[in-house]
């Protein structure tokens, strides 16, 4: 489709039950109360000239172009700041207004470079358009006076440039950074004619700017412009697609020239992101065409051999014959696969279908194992559904926000901006995190309570909360009586009322002052609508599932599920980890979370696929690796996952991989896991295929192909080739057919189709006859499970404890600019912000060890050791250190252990006992890493085509 121009009403759209009716240029128009005259005029079809107004920002009234005359009122008010009122009679055009507008325009143009034809905004410039609209013909001031035309260009940000000479000081960028992003990184420096947009007196890169691009989007001139547009010129058509980074799932318009992406612009219609973006989705997408992209299948007999490029046919035939050989020799259960949380729903569905139908076993698992599997277990046990209960927009009505074990300003930035907007409006905030994350205190945001709990004490904290709620009479009795199982509630209430769970008695374990814990619990219970947001700081623990249940318990006890502004919200990490779970990537579940022993479901699939299916659970990833080491698991098909970098206890992972005889990796880059692979199939990025992703809101959105797959086949096509070679026929010609099969076989997806998605844009499951347009809020009126089930959550300290040998606790996390294993972001300019992983350590702990900022330190646990640079940081607490896992060569997971959540085997990444000491050399593992980085990745030089 051609470039998508969304309607811009000039001022934000208002929603109200009341309406007002006014007359504009002789036309009667009715709008919601609170709508500005400018926006009312747009709905009527007339665009009043404007420059400082855009509907993503509140009205500002500074440019003085949008003046109108209103009968009965003096002067010429600005239509952007004037609310429409009943009976108003407005004139938007007459001689006086025309003269005033020309006068304003004249002033703007008197200090503006006139190189329109070679300017990067030529054809896409609101200043140009508006000058044309008001009919400016000459500038009587001449062009010789004081000017800003020689202002220097700020090129410091890798993705966009700031050309001050073209700035009209409309302040849209400053306001976008405040209202939309919430970072407040820009200001107007000076005053009067000297007014200048400035990122606090430095350049953009050195400022507080987080490169979200909101200012670039808001800028009406060429002042803030994408470097790609400057280089390439304007795009000529656009395709709406969904971001492939995090679980927010922002909707973007991929604006193209031919099959080259010029830029990704957030789509205003995106329900998840509401027209906003972050540095990754907005700018860091050209990893898709990076030179490291693998585009040819390769095979090798041993991992120490060179890779040999071969045809698709040969690679598929080799993989299929190997898998068959292994099953013949070692048994049906000796091979398995891992689906991707980054690939589409359709692709994931095919992988689990291949494993179940062609491999004949249930040895399929996914990365959700290592992140949110406890969410599935915990919420399934208490509420009956293994997914978040709300949509993101729900945060706009929350009164109390409780953030536990999540750092949304880094991990889910676009959602965090929405949350911060609500916080600035006055919602209260409780943050439970060992670190002093940005949400605790940053410009205009201050948490009412920061509970700096010790890693591993989550359940003690939630029990303390529950204790306060029950013993102080803060339970919502009516809600519990109506909606929950009373026997379970009474057992639970008796349990938490015990004084051993009180904040005072647990203070030593939790590490946060009892008074704060009490006050925070009271605030959550009595402050109005309470919404819980949580992340991997909850799930990646040995009691991850227990904690999820604990949070559901207090949400039920306070009546905070089943309405807008409340709920239990897991911030799911990956773009399609929710989808991957929905599509049956678990060894015990078919698509739609139906157990493999469920006869009705299994028989339906057996009939549809024409095979017989195993009725008992298969192996989870950790167990696949265990059995590989034990010699009984021999083959693995991995699509779009890098377990050698992302999974814990790297030594165990690589031992397992090495012990296998056929590892097939399907990915866009030669990743860490591929070092141990025998077959490599080139994967496809989100730009190269059609499909759908499901975000943390259960929202299914379209991914649309904008370029041909670099490796010839999209991931779903590659899986089909393998499936056919193994004897399970797959003949889909388009992903929509795969979705049709999913919809036909999965009750919660019954109403989902590409046609529905075209019509509605996106849809939140369940989407079926009961909810044909999807389900924004779950458990309205009653829980999916029937009566909500309170679960007993006794605190068990993890086995992993600090001791004399390893006195500190390491916790891990994400940052804004790099994404997970960094495969994508390290291949973009985002590396300018985070070139290496560092170890954050509190000044006290550092001083004790003679460690200064920037020193190389050895980080050691009982699993292994690495060398890493130290960074002294006040946001840590004594006793806790922190690092990221974005760079393979750091080897952060060499340190993490094999302790896991009791219910799901989700690894306890967040608690590892470590010691830190100064060093001056790489660790043995790191040295071996550099050797293997060369030895196991060699590709044979290309030979001339034989035929």
């Amino acid at each position, binding site marked *: 489709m051609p470039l998508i121009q969304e309607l811009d009403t000039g001022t934000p759209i208002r929603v109200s039950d009341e309406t007002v009716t006014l007359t504009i240029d002789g036309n009667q128009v009715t709008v919601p109360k609170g709508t500005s005259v400018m926006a009312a005029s747009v709905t009527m079809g007339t665009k009043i000239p404007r420059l400082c107004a855009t509907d993503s920002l509140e009205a500002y009234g500074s440019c003085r172009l949008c003046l109108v005359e209103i009968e009965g009122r003096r002067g010429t008010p600005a239509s952007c700041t004037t609310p429409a009122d009943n009976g108003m009679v407005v004139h938007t055009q007459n001689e006086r207004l025309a003269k005033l507008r020309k006068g304003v325009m004249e002033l703007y143009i008197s200090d503006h470079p006139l190189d329109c034809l070679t300017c990067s905004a030529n054809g896409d410039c609101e200043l140009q358009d508006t000058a044309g609209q008001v009919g400016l013909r000459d500038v009587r001031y001449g062009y010789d006076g004081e000017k800003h035309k020689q202002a220097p260009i700020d090129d410091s940000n890798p993705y966009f440039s700031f050309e001050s000479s073209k700035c009209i000081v409309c302040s849209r960028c400053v306001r976008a950074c405040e209202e939309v992003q919430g970072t407040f990184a820009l200001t107007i420096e000076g005053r009067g004619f000297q007014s200048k947009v400035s990122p606090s007196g430095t350049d953009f890169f050195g400022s507080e700017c987080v490169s979200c691009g909101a200012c670039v989007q808001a800028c009406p001139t060429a002042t803030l412009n994408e470097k790609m547009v400057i280089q390439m010129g304007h795009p000529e058509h656009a395709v709406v697609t969904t971001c492939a980074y995090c679980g927010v799932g922002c909707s973007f318009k991929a604006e193209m020239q031919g099959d080259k992406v010029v830029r990704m612009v957030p789509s205003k219609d995106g329900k998840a992101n509401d027209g906003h973006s972050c540095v990754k989705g907005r700018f860091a997408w050209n990893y898709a065409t990076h030179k490291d992209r693998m585009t040819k299948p390769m095979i090798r007999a041993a991992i120490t051999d060179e890779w040999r490029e071969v045809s698709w046919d040969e690679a598929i035939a080799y993989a299929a014959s190997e898998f068959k050989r292994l099953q013949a020799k070692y048994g049906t259960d000796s091979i398995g696969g891992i689906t991707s949380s980054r690939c589409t729903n359709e692709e994931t569905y095919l992988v689990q279908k291949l494993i179940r139908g062609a491999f004949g076993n249930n040895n399929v698992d996914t990365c959700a194992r290592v992140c949110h599997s406890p969410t599935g277990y915990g919420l399934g046990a208490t509420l009956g559904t293994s997914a978040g209960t709300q949509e993101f927009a729900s945060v706009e009505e929350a009164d109390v926000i409780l953030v536990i074990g999540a750092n949304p300003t880094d991990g889910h930035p676009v959602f965090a901006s929405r949350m911060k907007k609500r916080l600035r409006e006055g919602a209260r905030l409780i943050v439970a995190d060992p670190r002093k994350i940005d949400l605790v205190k940053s410009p205009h945001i201050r948490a009412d309570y920061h509970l700096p709990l010790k890693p591993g004490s989550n359940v003690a904290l939630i029990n303390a909360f529950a204790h306060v709620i029950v013993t102080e009479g803060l339970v919502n009795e009516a809600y519990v009586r109506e909606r929950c199982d009373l026997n379970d509630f009474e057992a639970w209430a008796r349990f938490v009322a015990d004084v051993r769970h009180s904040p005072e008695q647990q203070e030593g374990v939790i590490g946060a002052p009892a008074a704060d814990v009490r006050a925070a619990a009271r605030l959550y219970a009595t402050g109005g609508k309470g919404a819980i947001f949580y992340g991997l700081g909850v799930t990646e623990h040995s009691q991850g599932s227990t904690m999820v249940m604990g949070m559901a318990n207090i949400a039920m006890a306070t009546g905070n599920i089943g309405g807008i502004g409340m709920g239990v919200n897991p911030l799911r990490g990956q773009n399609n980890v929710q989808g991957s779970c929905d599509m049956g990537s678990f060894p015990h579940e078919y698509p739609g979370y139906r157990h493999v022993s*469920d006869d009705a479901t299994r028989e339906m699939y057996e009939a549809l696929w024409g095979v017989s299916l195993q009725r008992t659970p298969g192996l989870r990833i950790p167990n696949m690796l265990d059995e590989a080491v034990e010699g009984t698991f021999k083959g693995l098909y991995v699509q779009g996952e890098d377990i050698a970098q992302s999974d814990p206890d790297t030594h165990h992972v690589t031992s397992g991989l090495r012990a296998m005889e056929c590892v097939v990796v399907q990915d866009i880059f030669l990743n860490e896991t591929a070092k141990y692979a025998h077959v490599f199939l080139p994967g496809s990025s989100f730009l190269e295929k059609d499909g759908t992703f499901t975000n943390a809101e259960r929202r299914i959105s379209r991914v649309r192909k904008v370029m041909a797959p670099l490796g010839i086949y999209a991931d779903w096509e590659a899986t089909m080739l393998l499936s056919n070679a193994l004897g399970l026929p797959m003949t889909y010609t388009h992903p929509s057919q795969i979705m049709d099969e999913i919809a036909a076989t999965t009750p919660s997806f019954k109403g989902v189709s590409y046609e529905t998605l075209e019509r509605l844009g996106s849809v939140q499951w369940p989407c079926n006859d009961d909810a044909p347009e999807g389900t924004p809020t779950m458990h309205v009126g009653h829980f999916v499970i029937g009566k909500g089930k309170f679960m007993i959550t*006794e605190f068990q300290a993890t086995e992993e404890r600090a001791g004399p040998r390893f006195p500190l606790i390491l916790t891990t996390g994400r940052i804004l600019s790099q994404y997970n294993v960094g495969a994508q972001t390290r291949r973009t300019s985002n590396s300018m912000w985070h070139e290496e992983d560092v170890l954050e350590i509190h000044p006290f702990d550092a001083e004790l060890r003679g460690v200064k900022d920037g020193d190389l330190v050895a980080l050691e646990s009982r699993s292994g050791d690495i060398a890493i640079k130290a960074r002294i940081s006040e946001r840590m607490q004594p006793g806790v250190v922190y690092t990221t896992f974005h760079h393979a060569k750091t080897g952060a997971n060499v340190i993490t252990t094999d302790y896991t959540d*009791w219910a799901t085997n989700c690894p306890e990444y967040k608690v590892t006992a470590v010691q830190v000491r100064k060093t001056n050399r790489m660790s043995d593992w790191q040295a071996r890493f550099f050797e293997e980085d060369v030895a196991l990745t060699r590709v044979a030089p290309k030979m001339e085509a034989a035929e």
Partner: protein
Amino acid sequence: MSDHGDLVAKKAAKLAMMANQMAQFFGSYPHDQAIAGISGHIVKFWTPKMHALLIAQAERGDPALHPLVVDAMLMPKHVESPTKNHATGDLAHADAG
């Protein structure tokens, strides 16, 4: 071979650890619910092979096993698991073995 013996012992220790973790969670419930919970969880999530190994461990009287795990593997169950929502197939209520 001692290597194989090592692996077997390691496996048994691993299974015991995972099962004991379950016992710590379900231990907050009355005995009959606790053993239904542990058994149900294992049937639901473990492969039959792992389940069989654990039963064998219980029958051997492996001292590493929490008493509730032993009971869960060997005693009949008469009530539903506290996390019954997860148990959707008939196997969830089947006797161990």
